[in-house]
């Protein structure tokens, strides 16, 4: 942008850690030339609570509630990744009903999380009304969560060996009613936002993430699928009952903010589809396998992989044969997405920064751990 006549001075702008659009306590050090971003340095760690360290001093079941606090918008994915790793170590087989219930939980959480994405993304672009629309439908999911877990965000309902408790009466009907409502509401979002000229002008072609760059930086989930890479852990390594379910892995070839947005919007429809299948097929039976009172997995390591709403959320557990894990490591998708962010921001404007940051849908809880 320097035409050589008058070199404009670069200013360094600290976006965050307190800023309406950094989605938590992220700090972006932006170097600006006028409004154009020349360089960006993400600075993280403001929410570091040392969960991985704390896990080393807790027994296996005690670690579970900590995982809720990672990606606080989709606690069941975190629970699932950890539980999956521990069950792999134990070689535990989970009852069929529990598997279905877990998938229901995961998909409901995916919709809830994508709704928050929709809400905050729209809000970042100035469409405040859509923010409240997203929150309105999310509230219905929160009601369902409180029905089975008594909590809205930190559920810890997926437990080692199954789920915490069976679903209460009336849950299935209420969930099915939600499944009938949701597609209509999605159409409503499309009408108010997706087709809007201003929204398209702000998102189409903005914040390009080339597929090779995305893969090379370990991006995953809708962020990577928005660049046309068909990678979804639910398909690549089906866990629970995903292998038996009929759903599409949504991809978009455009690599831009719009692509990532559309992938999430379509994924909500797919999640509704999965939910309907699970709710209708839900078998009777136990919801929890026999688990020893003190969990003492044999020496070894396991890697639990889950497709969280943000991407590949994984948990790497190393056991030394004691009741406490030797190492619990959480692989957070947002961590990797943030590390490509500087590449995606270069050359765009401050206004685009919030759009691009919003489009990769990070949660600082899992970035900082």
């Amino acid at each position, binding site marked *: 942008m320097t035409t050589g006549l008058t070199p404009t001075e670069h*200013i360094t*702008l*600290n976006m965050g850690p307190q*800023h*309406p*659009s950094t989605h938590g306590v992220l700090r972006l050090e932006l170097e*600006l030339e*006028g*409004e154009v971003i020349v360089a960006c340095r993400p600075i993280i760690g403001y929410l570091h609570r040392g969960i991985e360290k704390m896990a080393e001093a807790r027994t296996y079941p005690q670690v579970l509630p900590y995982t809720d606090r990672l990606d606080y918008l989709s606690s069941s994915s975190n629970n699932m990744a950890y539980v999956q790793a521990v069950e792999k170590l134990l070689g535990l087989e989970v009852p069929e009903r529990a598997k279905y219930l877990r998938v229901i939980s995961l998909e409901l959480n995916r919709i809830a999380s994508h709704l928050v994405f929709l809400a905050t993304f*729209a*809000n*970042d*672009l*100035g*469409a*405040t*009304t859509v*923010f*409240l*629309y997203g929150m*309105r439908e999310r509230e219905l999911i929160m009601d369902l969560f409180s029905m089975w877990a008594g909590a809205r965000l930190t559920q810890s309902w997926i437990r080692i060996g199954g789920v915490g408790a069976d679903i209460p009466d009336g849950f299935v009907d209420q969930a099915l009613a939600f499944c009938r409502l949701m597609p209509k509401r999605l159409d409503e979002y499309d009408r*108010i*936002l997706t087709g*809007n000229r*201003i*929204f398209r*002008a*702000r998102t189409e072609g903005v914040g390009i993430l080339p597929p090779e760059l995305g893969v090379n930086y370990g991006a995953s989930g809708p962020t990577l699928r928005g660049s046309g890479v068909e990678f979804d852990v639910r398909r690549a390594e089906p866990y629970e009952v995903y292998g038996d379910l009929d759903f599409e892995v949504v991809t978009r070839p455009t690599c831009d903010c719009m692509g990532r947005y559309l992938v999430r919007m379509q994924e909500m429809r797919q999640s509704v589809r999965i939910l309907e299948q699970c709710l209708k097929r839900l078998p009777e039976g136990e919801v929890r396998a026999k688990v020893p009172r003190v969990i003492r997995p044999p020496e070894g390591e396991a890697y639990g992989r889950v497709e969280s709403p943000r991407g590949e959320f994984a948990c790497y557990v190393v056991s030394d044969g004691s009741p406490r894990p030797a190492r619990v490591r959480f692989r957070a998708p947002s961590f990797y997405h943030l590390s490509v962010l500087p590449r995606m921001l270069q050359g765009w*404007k*401050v*206004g*685009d*920064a*919030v759009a691009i940051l919003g489009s990769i849908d990070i949660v600082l809880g899992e970035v900082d751990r």
Partner: protein
Amino acid sequence: MNASLYNTIGQWWYVHGLPPWIFEAAWMVAMAALVTVFVLLSVLVLVWLERKISADLQSRVGPNRVGGRFGPLQTAADALKLLLKEDIFPAGADRVVFWLAPFVVFVPSLMVFMVLPFGERLAVNDLNLGVLFVVAVSAFPVIGLIMAGWGSNNKYAVLGAMRAAAQSLSYEVPLVLAMVCVVVFAGSLRVGDIVAAQREGGWFILRFPLQLAFLLYFITAMAEVNRVPFDLPEAESELVAGYHVEYSGMRFAFFFLAEFAHLFFVSAFCATLFLGAWQGPWLPPAVWFLLKSYAIVILIMWIRWTVPRLRIDQVMGFSWKLLVPLGLAAVVLTGIVKVW
């Protein structure tokens, strides 16, 4: 009523041989005070209206406690709170500039009301250059915004101020072009004459090329009052609050007042230029005037709470690449139609 009161007192004054200009001056001061009070009260109503409209669009309830079921006194309570808050000067601020900025924004936004006819002969002073006066005085607030942004010693504020300056410069051109169309059609810069011209031939929005001017005026007016989709100078998600990020309490209230006063003014002026001002059947003129003004206000609010925000280069491109050529075309078209 206004006219007769003016005549009665005026006659009394002349009969007693007092210099007429004192009466004129006193009359103007009194009317200005009246208009100021009216504007301040309108702002309270407008803020409440905005909250209720946004709440309704967002399937919320909005204010519903203070002063009854619909929260009519909520804004008054908030204003009172702002008055009582501590007045904070940020460290490293340019104190004089920081202190002065709210007034530079606020005073012109009241001054423009002086030429606005609230009814027949119900303008404080129907200057013969009324439209020019409006345009000239509306050019001031942006300097106040720049002062606020720069004086705050905050980078977000400076970015907001720069955006405000760029945006206001770009949108003033099509705004003036739109007004030129009206002026050419009415053949006068006096607001009263423009209203009179609409009495004879119908509202200006119904006359052929002026629909284009109306559209231009409406869009640029939204940009001038920094409303979504043109609210970049204070884009909350990008610049936190833009130029007024460091302001609190009373000083913040001044910006807020100015913003809503300006919003009301551009709507009222829109009604005056294009919708026949206070003219209408059955109802008293002042009621017609308010009805039309509020219709435009509500339209602007509706748009604000529906669409996302543009990016700064898109905003500038929109003005220079589309609105300015359109404005030029509108002026030429108006000239052709007028000469015909």
